[in-house]
């Protein structure tokens, strides 16, 4: 049963991703990306990473995609205004991406030769994650706060209109 779930969610994710790339209307691209995120969240649940699944939906689909939508609306990109690349370039793009995929698969294959550790139900649950985060990864946590500060300041500064 799980295998089937995995397959369905996987196909769903790949198809949505492809539509993101090939959709003509930018707004449609954004919507397909949201769909992809949902599919991936489903995969997370399959892996017992419950907290991350929810966070994925809230942060990515809820916040980041909304931001994208705001920008697209602001720039008024509803219609298809963008000229296409030449066919040669598109071909090269596909070939390059394909190459990358092949190489990646080749390099990561055989990783399951490592033994599977005894399964613990708690991995992926929020208490466990919280403990690990605030014990072992406290410094990166704090530093990421500074990162957010910088990003905020940067975004505000860049967005300001020049006072002529």
């Amino acid at each position, binding site marked *: 049963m799980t295998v089937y779930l995995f397959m369905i969610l996987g196909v769903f994710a790949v198809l949505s991703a492809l539509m993101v790339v090939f959709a003509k209307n930018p707004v449609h691209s954004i919507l397909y990306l949201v769909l992809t995120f949902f599919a991936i969240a489903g995969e997370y649940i399959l892996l017992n990473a419950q907290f991350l699944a929810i966070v994925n939906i809230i942060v990515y689909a809820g916040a980041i995609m909304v931001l994208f939508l705001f920008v697209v609306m602001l720039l008024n990109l509803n219609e298809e205004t963008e000229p296409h690349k030449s066919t040669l370039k598109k071909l090269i793009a596909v070939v390059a991406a394909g*190459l990358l995929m092949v*190489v990646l698969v080749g*390099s990561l294959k055989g990783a399951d030769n490592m033994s599977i550790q005894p399964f613990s139900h708690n991995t992926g649950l929020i208490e466990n994650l919280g403990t690990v985060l605030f014990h072992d990864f406290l410094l990166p946590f704090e530093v990421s706060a500074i990162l957010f500060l910088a990003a905020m300041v940067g975004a505000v500064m860049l967005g300001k209109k020049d006072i002529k």
Partner: protein
Amino acid sequence: MMQFAALIPFFPLAGFIILGLLNKKLPKSAAGILACTTLLISFIISLAVFMSISGQSQEIQLAPWIDMGGFSASFTFLLDPLSSIFLMIITGVGFLIHVYSVGYMHDDEKHNIFFAYLNLFVFFMLVLVMASSYLLMFVGWEGVGLCSYLLIGFWFKNKSYNDAAKKAFIMNRIGDLGFLLGIILLFITFGSSDYHTIFPKAQGLMSGNTMITAITLLLFVGAMGKSAQIPLYTWLPDAMAGPTPVSALIHAATMVTAGIYMVARSGILYALSPVSMYVVALIGVVTAVFAATIALTQNDIKKVLAYSTVSQLGYMFLGLGVGAFSASVFHVMTHAFFKALLFLGAGSVIHGLSGEQDIRNMGGLRKKLPITFITFLLATLAISGIPPFSGFFSKDEILIHAFASNKLFWALGMIGSMMTAFYMFRLLFLVFFGTYRGDDKIHAHESPAVMTIPLIILAILSTIGGFVGVPESLGGTSQINKFLDPVFQSATKILPAEGASSISEMTLMSITIAVVLGSILLAWYFYISRKKVPLAEEAKLSPIHNLLYRKYYVDEIYNALITKPLDKISDFLDSIVESKFIDGIVNATGKVTEGVSGLMKFVQTGNVDFYLLAMVISVACIIFFKLM
């Protein structure tokens, strides 16, 4: 007392530093007094040293200098009879010339700098004679060459004076190369350049040793440059471009005698090498005659004296070459007296005539410049070798030793003496006797006391200075020979013994006096009785006269043989090697860099998608190669 001796060079050095640093701020009178005082103090200390020298040499070590590997040298001074005589000459005559310069350079704007340079020169000369190793002597040697350059080109706004200064320096350098090679060979042979190491070791060597011959010949090349012997003498007449006190101090009394000092100091090395002695004597006597022939025809008062100096230096080398070391040193001393006097007297004449130097425009000055005339007359009598003046004793001793060793040299020396007397009296008669041939607007006047008193003192020394060297054959005790004997003992032991007896000496002296008197009478005949006056510049001269007047065209020959080819070579190197080759390499490096960057710039298209594609392909490649 001996400890104070080490201070002798440092008073003039202090004078140089003070005058050099404060030269714009000091008034002229203060500068002059300071310069003369430093010399006076050095002279007093030198006098004290001279009185207390006992015949043994004494070394004063100042400071270590180099000490690495097997090579070490230190700053050490040596005091022995030879160096103490030279100290007296340098500081004594130097002091008189400084006093004279106070008057001579009084109106010059660079007055203070002049005294600074003079003091520096005296410092280096003192280092030269007080050094106890060849290396330290070389320091002084180079230093006096430098000061000579500074002082000859003192009035540097005139290009020909600059050229003369450069010529002096460059010719000196050629000699210095030989000197330096000699020092290097000394190091190789003896392991050190100190006198107290070399000379005892040298005593054990065989006569005729080839290494010693090479060393002495190379050292003599240095002496040829510094003491203006053939072929490196042409700088000295041109050096008359400098102020007259410079000519008196440097080119008559002190610097040019550095070569004599060096050969005398290396007496034992030369005694071990008969070939070198012969070469020294030969070049000395040939130079003596050669320069005397040129001096017969010159019309510039200072040029006559310059060629006379070259000639007298030739006599000194002749003396060294035949083994009469102390006679040569004696002649150095008397020559310092009368040649400095001659130059200072010439300066007095030039000063009195407001700059006139051509003897064709002089004449009858003995009434207008009486003191100058009398002192000049005494000096002329001394240089001609008339007894009882000093020049007679010293020159005759050289000639007697020359007769004992090589009759031909003696004969040439006699011819030189004859010519010396002739041209010196020619000079005297043309300048001071007869009627005045110059510009009537110039009012000839005697020089002030500050200039005439040194003249008088030098005249007294020229007259009585010979009495320290009266030979036994005339009843004297030859004090100077006894004084210098400890220094030259080891050298004279090696030389073959001479056999001239007293009677032969008296005969030789009589011949000399007769010949000289004959020359003087001949000069009297030409220039007083027949009132002959040298021809003007444009006049056509007989071929021999022309050859002598144009100094045998030696300068022109050097120009064509040496200077022009060197110029051509340097032009070639500049235009071909420098511009094309070396610059080409540098430019090619630049062009290669440009070319490579021209190719590399195609990577930076500015297209974002090109960059993205490049990134993706690079990542794929990296992972791929990691897999391999």
